């Protein structure tokens, strides 16, 4: 039962992190699209200043993406724990 609860908690965490990222990336892309349109209506073919916020905010979004999809709620941590336990087992 405890293992099941633990799994449920972890699944909730992962789902929550992924939903957070989806919200973040959609808002980011929408805002950038609006800025790009404003930029190109006011100065057609001119300096693309909207890429500055796209870069700054984008770094945050990419970090969020990596955290939500690569880290995956502790899978790396779990693997590390497993390795450590294996190593300890070998020593014994």
């Amino acid at each position, binding site marked *: 039962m405890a293992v099941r609860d633990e799994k449920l908690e972890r699944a909730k965490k992962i789902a929550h992190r992924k939903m957070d990222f989806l919200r973040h990336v959609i808002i980011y892309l929408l805002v950038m699209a609006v800025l790009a349109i404003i930029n190109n209506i006011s100065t057609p073919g001119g300096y693309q200043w909207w890429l500055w916020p796209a870069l700054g905010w*984008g770094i945050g979004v990419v970090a969020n993406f990596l955290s939500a999809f690569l880290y995956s709620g502790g899978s790396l941590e779990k693997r590390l724990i497993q390795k450590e336990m294996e190593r300890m087992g070998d020593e014994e």
Partner: protein
Amino acid sequence: MKSKRSAADILGIVLGVAALALVIAALVYLLGARPFHRLRGPWFQTGSGWSGAWVSEERTEEVSQRVQALSVNNISGPVRVEGWDRDTIEVHYVKKARGQQALEDFRIEILAEGDTLKVQPVYAPPAGFRFGPVSFDLKVPSTLREIRVHNVSGRIEVSSLAADVQQDLETVSGAIFTDRSGNLRAKSTSGGIEFSFAGNRLYAKSVSGAINGKIRNLGRGGSVEVESVSGSVNLSAFAGLDAELHLRSTSGSVSCGFPMQITEQRRSRLEGRIGTGAVPLSAKTVSGSINLSPLE
């Protein structure tokens, strides 16, 4: 076998990769565009890309109308003014922009108004960030009464004049150099100032640059005010200098090579008179030394 990835997962990965691609594209564009275009190397070549290749237009115009003053206003690029032995003014400029359209969107105005010849780039609104750099090379007669050059990002250089013409030179980012001037007002926020002055009024101020100047003559009733914030001040003056001296540095040394009657002397402060003290001469800096010596 059931797929482990849900639709939300796939959407998330697709949008994440899109955001990553946008970040990389922004980085590439911004490194190739202003303000990085001065950097050199394969990563910083600006000849192509989404922002358009740099194109330039070079032109020389001669103004035969007789004027008393020259006024140049530039936003980006150096301004060089050189004296010559003709009565006319020659304006040579090179304007640059990213793409032919951007180049055509601004023009160089050369306009004689009253007794002043005005030279400046005129950008079509909305200019936005499309201030294409313009470098000016002007040749002027030494009979001019005044030369006024205001720049934002670029050096100002005045040379080879055959007379002490009054000058008003100001730039935000760039050095100022004049090898011969009458009354002078020189101001740079980020750049050194070098001058050779003979007149009544001298005002030179730099926020982050050294000031090196020669005072070849100083009329009675005039004044000298030289000020830097983070640079040294080195002045050399003609032997007959007659001035009331106020030299003050917050964190540097102060020295004077003229015989003088001292009223106050400390390491960073020197006050007194050279001769009868006819003209106030003050030099200030926050972090730098101040030196006043006789002209050799």
